């Protein structure tokens, strides 16, 4: 049966020894073909003039004052091979016009209606500032800002203004000195606003989020503290039981339990039991002799005594006596 799926590592790419050998050149040729190369060049070539196009504002910032007058601040790229540049103003009612070139000279400007003729003489960037009175209209208590902007721009609204209508999406918004600053995209924009006492637009969502984070964080901290306290208390309460359980797992009773069960043990025997207990419940008789510096016979008697009491049991290990604490002493009782 012929497989319909061709494996990526075809047999052709395997060497004589069956080793997978991949040539980087062939992958590169496959991935980047000549057409792609030409397309890349065309894209780059097409984008260069777009990037170096003139007369488009780099920055455009507007500030609306309380009386609806607007301060315009803009930076424009101009053709450095021209002697003049004609700037289209956003209206004819302007004042306080200042134009500065990239050489930091204050430039001569002739304003005729909506346009300003600026002597540039090889300048490539102009910084223009002026105040305009044509962008905001007022009807009753309602103020309306309208602009057909050639580029994205920022708009700082007056203090205590509250937006009640918009025809464009704001790209961004921030609060500067209790004033709303919107970043808006190019094109026609109309914004209606009233003056109120409830502005600037509070960052309610962010505040809510922040509050939410605090609540969630607090709950997590409380839960963690609760768990820690619970575990600690549990450890405290269950320690003896657990200890007994652990000892039982190792077939060893707790030392206190042993002594409770065998209250008549001799003091020297108790010392032996303690040592065996601390030695993981078992010890060679020879170890006990060395530890307690007892003669062989004395130690033998002591071990036999403990065996009779049912505290220990004796096993043979490598021809030696291995003394082990007994388990289930209660059962023995």
């Amino acid at each position, binding site marked *: 049966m012929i497989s319909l799926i061709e494996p990526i590592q075809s047999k052709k790419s395997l060497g004589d020894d069956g080793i997978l050998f991949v040539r980087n050149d062939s992958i*590169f040729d496959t991935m980047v073909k000549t057409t792609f*190369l030409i397309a*890349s*060049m065309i*894209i*780059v070539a097409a*984008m*260069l003039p777009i990037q*170096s196009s003139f007369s488009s504002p780099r920055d455009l910032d507007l500030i609306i*004052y*309380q*009386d*609806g*007058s607007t301060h315009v601040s803009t930076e424009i790229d101009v*053709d450095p091979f021209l*002697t*003049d540049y004609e700037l289209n103003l956003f209206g004819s009612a302007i*004042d*306080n016009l*200042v134009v*500065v070139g990239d050489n*930091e*000279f*204050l430039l001569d400007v002739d304003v005729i209606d909506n346009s300003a003729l600026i002597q540039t*003489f*090889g300048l490539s960037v102009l910084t223009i*500032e002026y*105040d305009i*009175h*044509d962008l*905001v*209209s*007022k*009807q*009753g*208590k*309602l103020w309306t800002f309208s602009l057909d902007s050639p580029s994205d721009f920022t708009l700082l609204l007056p203090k205590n203004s*509250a*937006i*009640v*209508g*918009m*025809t464009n*999406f*704001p*790209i*961004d*918004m921030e609060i500067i000195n209790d004033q709303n600053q919107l970043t808006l*995209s190019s094109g026609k924009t*109309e914004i*209606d606003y009233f003056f*109120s006492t*409830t*502005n600037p*637009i*509070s*960052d*309610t*969502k*962010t505040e809510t989020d922040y509050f939410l984070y605090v609540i969630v964080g607090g709950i997590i901290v409380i839960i963690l503290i609760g768990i820690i306290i619970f575990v600690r208390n549990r450890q405290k309460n269950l320690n003896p039981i657990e200890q007994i359980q652990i000892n039982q797992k190792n077939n060893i009773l707790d030392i206190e339990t042993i002594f409770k069960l065998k209250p008549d043990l001799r003091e020297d025997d108790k010392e032996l039991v303690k040592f065996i207990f601390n030695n993981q419940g078992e010890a060679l008789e020879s170890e006990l002799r060395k530890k307690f510096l007892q003669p062989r016979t004395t130690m033998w008697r002591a071990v036999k005594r403990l065996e009779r009491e049912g505290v220990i049991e004796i096993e043979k290990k490598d021809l030696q006596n291995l003394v082990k604490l007994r388990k289930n002493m209660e059962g023995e009782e």
Partner: protein
Amino acid sequence: MKKLALFVIIVLIFGTISPSLTNHAYAQNDPNILLRIATQADKQIVNQLNGVYGDQIPNNIKILYDKGYLAVKSLDQSLSKDDIEKAKQDFLLAMNSFMQISRIMAQSSEKVVVVTVSDKSNRNLTSEIDRLEKYVKTLEIISKKYNTDVESDFIKIHDLIQELRIQINNGYVTYDDLINEIKIILDSIKNDILESAIKQKSDFIKRFFDRLLDRVDKQLTKAQDDNVDQIQIDKATALILEIKELLSKNQINSAKVVYSELKELMKNIGYSIRIT
């Protein structure tokens, strides 16, 4: 070498395209601002409606308000579902409804007034002084780059502005004289700056023309090689000499006029001066 060339091209493409991609990403920045604006507008409209109509809101406005209110609710839901396109539609619908309401309410009160300088009724002196102060600061920054002795003038202007603000706070009405005084000083400062820049500006303009005429000269040499009519070439050469002479006499505006003539001539013989 081939790999290197391909790598450079790929880098160029991504380098060229990436700034525009960043801008698009920026445009999608924090869609929650839509909800914040719409919610605030909603509250403002409710306040206005309560203030103007109380409990007797006209039916057409009520319908519009319900439309806007529901759009704000839908906007909230769209945002919680991360449906940005729907959120945008909701935002526009809400803001459009609120805009219609506010315009209906405004229409009933007064006619449209475009705010102008001459319109004394809408004159807000605080705004006027704010704007004036901004203008003063701009000129102050520019003047520091020139050898002008206008520091004392600026101190005087700042004192006058201070005085104006005090007068406005106290409700006096003699501010027009003060504003006119400030404007006169500002005009004088501006003229001082322009005059002090004449020499530097003239040098700058001459350097600009030198560069430009040098390019024209090279183009004329090429035109000669291309067998362009010698009369036209001689005419262009004469215009270049005329511009240089006018510049040496500091007659910038005349030089500009002749330069325009030269530019036109070069265009006619098929050579644009705009060499980029």
